[in-house]
């Protein structure tokens, strides 16, 4: 593990973990509140329904309670927690191999947008100065959620962890068991799809 600057959130988290070890229910609920949303999102990438995702999250918390004394603190609590979740979600969910080969390869942006020399034929239009608040409030939020749900499993998991939750690339590799270069390829594809969703929302 690389050296990290001690950030306040990590310190607060370590305190909660220590209190949880000491048997503090409030610390458990506080930790759960911190991570529940990401856990649900992530579990949902691997299993067929929200109800099953909720079960996976509950199972994960039970596994955490049982295993907390053995948590060595070599990784962050969060990556430890999410690794447990992913293992459970995968064994509960459908086969991981589902359509990976087809949808995870190929360019992020369709070749038809470029001419034979690789120069733009249909260049991106200018929309970056649109108000992000307004866009999100007028339907883009739902549109992005939908685009996220439609991503192939691994792309979806990676972009949830990186861009929705804010984990580092290194942490994501640890949680999902992918190599750094694979993580980048999948992230690239996923972000490409999401950018297209924004583009289609703005200029249908």
């Amino acid at each position, binding site marked *: 593990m690389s050296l990290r600057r001690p950030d306040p959130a990590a310190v607060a988290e370590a305190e909660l973990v220590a209190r949880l070890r000491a048997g503090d229910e409030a610390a458990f609920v506080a930790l759960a509140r911190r991570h529940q949303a990401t856990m649900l999102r992530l579990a949902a990438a691997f299993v067929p329904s929200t109800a099953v995702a909720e079960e996976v999250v509950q199972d994960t918390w039970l596994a955490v309670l049982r295993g907390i004394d053995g948590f060595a603190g070599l990784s962050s609590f969060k990556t430890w927690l999410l690794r447990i979740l992913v293992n459970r979600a995968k064994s509960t969910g459908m086969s991981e191999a589902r359509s990976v080969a087809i949808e995870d390869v190929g360019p992020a942006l369709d070749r038809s947008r470029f001419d034979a020399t690789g120069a733009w034929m249909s260049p*991106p239009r200018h929309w970056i100065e649109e108000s992000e608040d307004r866009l999100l409030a007028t339907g883009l939020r739902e549109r*992005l959620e939908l685009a996220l749900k439609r991503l192939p499993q691994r792309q979806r998991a990676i972009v949830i962890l990186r861009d929705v939750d804010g984990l580092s690339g290194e942490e994501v590799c640890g949680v999902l068991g992918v190599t750094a270069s694979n993580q980048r390829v999948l992230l690239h594809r996923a*972000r490409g799809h999401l950018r297209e969703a924004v583009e289609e929302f703005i200029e249908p």
Partner: protein
Amino acid sequence: MRLLPRKDPLVCQEVVELVTDYLEGALSRSDRRRFEAHLADCPHCSEYLAQMRVTIRLTGRLGPDDLSPEMQDDLGELYRRWRVPPSR
């Protein structure tokens, strides 16, 4: 890190496919220079990179759904069920 032919300038399509490696700091020094040299001359690719940054920011704002009160109750109960049992 992807291997690119040495000296040719990058074309737009290549730049688009390298955007994530660029943002992740995964390009070699020389590829980074070629990438930035292309951007300096290409408003479309600069636009694309800016759109990618905006997209990442927008995705980051999807944020967590709030925990439903039922779910919070469930968690408290889960904890107590786990604490109480016989062997502990």
